[in-house]
């Protein structure tokens, strides 16, 4: 896989079918539905303990706005990912072009996905920092790889935004 900036786009080329599939899974991975721990993490409380009134108002008025914000980001990413549709069974490498004006949406969707996957799997800090973890041998390993792969993309986008 190669990743580079080309004018107003971030181009990810030489994407093999496995990585293409991981990218295609970003919007689905960001979905908190049915996962209480993930829902709790994405929509965390604005105060600890005593501020019950604030927390109740937050749930009623702020949370729906945040939900819309996150959904809008995953929809933007989903539409960019349509470039990868069509030849799912082909073994040929693919190229994905992300308009730089979508960079914030990508940062958000990647972050949502990473947080949701980590919450669903209850990853420890030790696991998350173990970048030398050996080959994927289980569903949990695959999820950890997904978190790290999405993190790598986030880092690259962040670097591009700084330039």
């Amino acid at each position, binding site marked *: 896989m190669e990743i580079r900036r080309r004018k107003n786009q971030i181009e990810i080329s030489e994407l093999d079918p496995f990585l293409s599939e991981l990218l295609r899974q970003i919007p689905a991975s960001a979905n908190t539905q049915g996962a209480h721990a993930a829902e709790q993490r*994405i*929509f*965390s*409380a*604005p*105060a*600890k303990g005593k*501020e019950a009134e*604030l927390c109740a*108002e937050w749930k*009623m*008025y*702020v949370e729906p*706005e*945040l939900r819309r*914000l996150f959904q809008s980001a995953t929809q933007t990413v989903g539409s960019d990912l349509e470039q990868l549709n069509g030849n799912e069974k082909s073994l040929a490498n693919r190229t994905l072009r992300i308009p730089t004006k979508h960079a914030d949406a990508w*940062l*958000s969707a990647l*972050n*949502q996905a*990473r*947080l949701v996957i*980590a919450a669903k799997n209850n*990853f*420890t*800090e030790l696991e*998350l*920092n173990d970048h030398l973890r050996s080959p994927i041998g289980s569903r949990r390993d695959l999820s950890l790889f997904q*978190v790290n792969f999405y*993190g790598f993309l*986030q*880092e690259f986008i*962040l*670097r591009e*935004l700084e330039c």
Partner: protein
Amino acid sequence: MSAEPLLAEVAVPLIPGIVRPKSATPSTVVAPTIEKETRAEEELDLPWQVVVHNDPVNLMSYVTMVFQRVFGYPRDKAERHMLEVHHKGRSILWSGMREPAELYVQQLHGYLLLATIEKIA
């Protein structure tokens, strides 16, 4: 002192462009007594702080960028706060009135950071 019913919309802006009604039924509110008003003002005047808590998933570079964007901090100051969150588990990013503190926490949640508002003891 009897309380006259007021017809008023009570709204608290949280983020620009979004007006958050203070209660679920804002169309009719009863005017508070002077005693209650004074207490409410005192509560609002108390200083509040915006605290960001450690999260092993969010990237350090991402957290730094968020602090720069939300608080307008220069990179070195944003990095200092990020490292404080990383090493000490939390960092106080801002303190002041309750309303802007709520606004900051909402923005931080929009970036998926673990942030809370706390009353200064």
